[in-house]
């Protein structure tokens, strides 16, 4: 049998090759990610930035594996998936977090960097349908990073809250004001540590018509690391008596007003709330001077006395 005849027989007897069309079980079994990007436009050299991406699937009844590939040649060595490039998607879990970490080298060029991370799900083990072109579900994460050489100081106010406080107290002639603790959940959207430059309260009566007091924060406010979201507290003095008020707050970043709004401010009778008031720092300037002046005078007198005694010994 010559070659032609042999081939003809093979084709005639054994073919057609069947590419069976077998529907897989995952009808409507969706897959997706959120967010579909790793994005930061204010990275600095040596910065470490992490982005969590959630892998979600509609039908977690079978175990799968998410295979992750990074397609970003310019970012080679900078970017990695925390925990490795394969993530198990166990039975029963619909949401699995994946953390992308960006470590900007000290010599990174100041420019934009783009790329992609691709995630595809494959069945764990031998579960593919035989004789069909199976379909793996996947998603693409866009990488869009910018390394810059300038400081960006900015934040976003995510949430604010106010605790009840005790009214101020008097000790001899000194009045120690009540301490307003104003909590702010802030997201640092810049690339340096930051905290609000000023927090201002205008306090009104309960009707919101008569302004009773205007105060700004005393002391420093804790800073937030770049790209972090944390709660920080501003402390403001108030000399108002116990009562219920409306506080109109303003949060500043330099000259920029980042947020303003209204809150209830409840000042309780002294000793009611489990929180301390202001100490020396909360005193008025007049009261501070009245306290410090005698101390300084005494100090000078003691120094003068010591000086004179020393002088007498020399003679």
């Amino acid at each position: 049998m010559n070659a032609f005849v042999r081939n003809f027989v093979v084709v005639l007897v054994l073919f057609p090759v069947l590419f069976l069309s077998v529907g897989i079980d995952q009808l409507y079994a969706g897959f997706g990610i959120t967010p579909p990007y790793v994005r930061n436009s204010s990275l600095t050299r040596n910065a470490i930035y992490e982005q969590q991406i959630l892998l979600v699937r509609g039908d977690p009844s079978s175990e799968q594996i998410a295979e992750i590939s990074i397609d970003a040649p310019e970012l080679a060595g900078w970017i990695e998936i925390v925990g490795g490039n394969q993530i198990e998607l166990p039975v029963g879990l619909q949401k699995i977090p994946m953390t992308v970490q960006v470590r900007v080298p000290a010599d990174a060029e100041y420019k934009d960097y783009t790329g992609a991370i691709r995630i595809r799900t494959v069945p764990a083990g031998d579960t593919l349908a035989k004789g069909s072109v199976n379909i793996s579900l996947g998603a693409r994460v866009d990488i869009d990073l910018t390394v810059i050489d300038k400081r960006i100081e900015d934040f976003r106010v995510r949430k604010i809250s106010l605790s009840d406080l005790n009214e101020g107290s008097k000790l001899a002639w000194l009045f120690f004001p009540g301490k307003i603790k104003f909590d702010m959940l802030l997201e640092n959207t810049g690339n340096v540590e930051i905290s609000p430059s000023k927090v201002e309260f205008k306090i009104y009566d309960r009707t919101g018509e008569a302004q009773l007091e205007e105060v700004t924060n005393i002391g420093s406010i804790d800073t937030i690391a770049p790209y972090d979201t944390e709660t920080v507290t501003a402390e403001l003095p108030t000399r108002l008596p116990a009562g219920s008020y409306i506080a109109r707050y303003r949060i500043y970043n330099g000259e920029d007003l980042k947020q303003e709004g209204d809150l209830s401010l409840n000042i309780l009778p002294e000793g009611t709330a489990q929180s301390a008031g202001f100490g020396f720092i909360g005193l008025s300037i007049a009261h501070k001077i009245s306290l410090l002046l005698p101390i300084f005078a005494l100090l000078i007198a003691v120094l003068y006395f010591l000086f004179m005694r020393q002088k007498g010994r020399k003679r």
Partner: protein
Amino acid sequence: MSYNHQEFPNYMQTAGKVSVLTAIIGLAVFIFAFIVDVGQQEIQKVSAQTASTSLQVLNTPPTFVVEPFEVPPSSTTTPTNSGDVVTWSATGNDANGAPYYLLVCDDDAVDPTPTNGGAPTCGAGAVQWGVSAATPSDDPATVSTTTVEAAPFAESNDWYAWVCDGDPTQAECIVVPSQGAVPTAASSSPFNMNSRPILTSADPAGAINPGDVLTFNSVSTDPDSDPADDNLFLVVCANPGDYNTTTNTCDANFIASTTGSQTSNASAATGTASILRDGTRSAHAFLVDQHGHEALGGGEDVEYTVNNVAPTVLSGEVTLNGGTTIVLSDASAGESTGYTLDFTVNDANSCVNDTGDPGSEITGFQAAVYRTSIGTGTGACNPVDGVYNPNFCYESSQAPAVWNLTCTASSTSCTGATDDDIEYSCTFPLWFLADPTDDGPHVADSWSASVAGIDDQFATSTFVQSASNVALQSFPVFSLVTAEIPYGGLAPGDGFTTLGVREEDGGAATTTIQNIGNTGLDQELDGSAMCPTFVSTSSDCSLTATSTVFANSQRFGASAVPFLDAASFVLPTTSVGSPAFLDLNVVETVATSTFAEGLTYWGIEVPSAVTVAGTYTGLNTFYIRTDADW
């Protein structure tokens, strides 16, 4: 001129001296007899014997030892309230040691009339304020009279006091009456009577809101004008029994009192608490003059009304999702759950009504969660207009089957009538197609929540938007309608002439992805080689030409173009090259039950070199990516 006595004769020197001496002696005898009463008996005898004589010593009136005075002093500054008693006290002395009477009259034009063996009376035409009982000499005597707001009592009343005795035969009164020791003293004449003020009516000025000034007005006068009109005070207590006529104020439940000088139509005002339950409140007004004399009638009912005011919501007290980005997570075209909305509803009428039950005043709320540019205005996203859209507007007028906003009022946030707020914690779901605001066409937006409070009378606050908005994260998700690439049966060397059209039966060789996320979608594709021994990757294949159909034998496109058309793309091999992009432009789904779809048209050409018959298995990968311009 002078005389020389020596020159006279002796008789001349003695002449006259005897006469003078005789006269002097006679005079001395006369005086002696007169003084020593020498011969009295003899004279009496002579008298008795001759004529009788008699001498009657008359009764004399008592005198004041202590001048009369009022007890207590009654004057213009300390008048005697009508109905009270004016009392005089004085001490008299009778020369005979007999008892005496203290008589007080309003006039001294006519002398009083003493009475033998009894009490004296005022002279004709005079008003007798009073007369004491017979009082032993040198003991204090008192006289009193009860004032009434009728004649003969006037605002100022003169008085004159006498002390008289009750001599059985010749009673006498002191000739000059007394008006007190010191005429200008408060305890001296006149005495002053303070008449009651007159309260014609009293009413609240009107209904008030919490925090307003509560004013009570009255129609009221006072008859007194000496030395000036009396000041009037309107005292308002909650209940009639709260007023104390001694202290002239409320023993309890004080509401208001006149301040300053008001001589007629007295009013009283007070600032009210900023948190005050609504409803009618009991109040009674009492009128009292500056001398503590109340108007008759026991007070006027001046019940007042505290208006029901609408609740309020403060922007800083509305927090959507704890201030964190909203991340959808349901990949089965359903709702993601567990998002939070926390807010506080304040009500100046407090959080309780008259029942006192926590939460009885603040009874409900309206809420909306929406993309900010949609807003909450008329026709926008608010529960009044009921414009629900799962892409961008979720509002609380919807039935739970549509939007299941589940809220719980804090059991501890409402502590009573002086507490004005209730804190709510809510959870809610969002559909998979809720618009993202971190990317795409709505990147200038964010998601926000607005809340209005509702009270027990259905007064509703304005819709207040949260001070802090949050982003809703892009959520590209897809599923497959038919998760197969239906190439059908082909012989080596055979292939598709048109993408998506099977040669053997003319059936469709397409795949359909459905957009069950919230972004527009495009697609990237790659695939592995197919072979009969395929398990999970192409490395399971021998990769020989006789038993392998390589990935590049497959082509795809976004439409039914010829197999080798420019719009027909070769399928890249997984892990070898980058996947091929297919600009499907699947738009964002806008209905929860009808999904936006994208079709991929497939074709394959089986190489002639394939000689091993059988079922070939392969694995193609569909990567979705967010459409850049959806």
